[in-house]
């Protein structure tokens, strides 16, 4: 933590960065995102197990951009998000100073996208055993049980769109849910519209999601949303051999194709 504060102070004092996006103490013993603009305020930065939020979501927000050149405290999901945003032409090399944090909390020097790519490449990107177990549990259900499971989960959805707000890849200025000619997603939170929303959200993140899990953490009614994107991530990898957030070059599974893609389901 001291190394992090020192590094943040250096960045602000040298003028290389004007704002540090990091974690600070929030209410109810939770960590929250803070935006440090003064060297003396770097003491507010913390780093522990509670610091789970994907801070990269703020990089594209106008309010944060207006604070000046950012530096960001970046664990693996944030690093992958930065690479994926770069691949989608949302960030250029040098737009953000990265304070890399290794899985055991040590500072990592990552001067450019190339260095981030190499570092991400050296870490395991698979789902954790708990995540894998939960995913397998649902995959092994009968189709009727899966339908019951998901319709039950989605029935709690209130269409608050916190999942969308928390996601660094939901940056469209006009989201499909705001399009009302036609009304693609029903406004009322009924079962059918909720299913449509969660299907469309997952599909729009297919091949882009880096599995930070913020959508599920943001959900006020605890819908395990990240399972949908994890499942699609698995399909993208097994069918097309691609993984989001591993390169700053465009590698979006759905913007390309191979002539011999699987088609055993097509008549």
């Amino acid at each position, binding site marked *: 933590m001291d190394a992090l504060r020192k590094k943040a102070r250096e960045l602000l004092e040298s003028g290389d960065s004007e704002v540090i996006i990091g974690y600070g103490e929030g209410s109810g013993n939770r960590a929250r995102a803070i935006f440090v603009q003064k060297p003396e305020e770097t003491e507010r930065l913390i780093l522990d197990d509670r610091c789970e939020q994907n801070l990269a979501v703020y990089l594209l927000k106008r309010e944060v951009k207006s604070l000046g050149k950012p530096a960001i405290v970046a664990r693996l999901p944030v690093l992958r998000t930065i690479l994926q945003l770069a691949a989608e032409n949302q960030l250029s090399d040098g737009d953000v100073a990265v304070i890399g944090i290794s899985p055991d909390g040590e500072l990592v020097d990552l001067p450019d996208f190339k260095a981030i790519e190499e570092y991400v490449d050296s870490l395991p990107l698979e789902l954790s055993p708990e995540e894998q177990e939960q995913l397998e549990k*649902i*995959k092994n*259900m009968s*189709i*009727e*049980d*899966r*339908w*019951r*499971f*998901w*319709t039950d989960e989605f*029935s709690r959805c209130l269409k608050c769109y916190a999942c969308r707000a928390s996601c660094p890849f939901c940056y469209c200025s006009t989201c*499909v849910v705001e399009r009302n000619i*036609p009304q*693609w997603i029903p406004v*009322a*939170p*009924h*079962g*059918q*519209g*909720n*299913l*449509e929303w*969660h*299907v*469309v959200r*997952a*599909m729009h993140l*297919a*091949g882009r999601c880096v599995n930070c899990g913020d959508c599920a953490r943001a959900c006020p009614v605890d819908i395990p949303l990240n399972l*949908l994107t994890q*499942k*699609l991530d698995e*399909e*993208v990898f097994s*069918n*097309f051999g691609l993984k989001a957030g591993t390169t700053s070059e465009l590698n979006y*599974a*759905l*913007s390309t*194709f*191979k*002539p011999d*893609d*699987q*088609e055993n*389901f*097509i*008549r």
Partner: protein
Amino acid sequence: MAEFEPKIIAFVCNWCTYAGADLTGTSRIKYATNVRMIRLPCTGRIDFMLLLKAFAQGADGVIVSGCHPGDCHYTAGNYHARRRWILFRSLLDFVGFDTRRVHFAWVSAAEGAKWAQVVNSVVNEVRELGPFEDYQKLARVGVE
């Protein structure tokens, strides 16, 4: 009570399957009348949301059909569509949506007979499955 007749919505591309279905007609081949065809420029244009909208509007089954690989009028629209279908089908299956109600086909402008056969077999399969009440009922969940 009369036997259940499924409503099938077919999203087809203008250049191959729509012309193929025309050929079915001009060849005087009879096929099931349960299908309502919607012509779009290319399978690459067929957003998966259209399929969900069809089910929301009461479809019991959906067919998506276009040019064979390599024949796309826009060179690669069908290849892109195919990738999307692979992911969309697996996602539907994962949420427990019966993918036996969503069918994909390549039907060229010369395959009038194939179109009739695709429609007939989809209609028969969906008739077996019965009306898609699961999905219709969802629109009431959280309302009543």
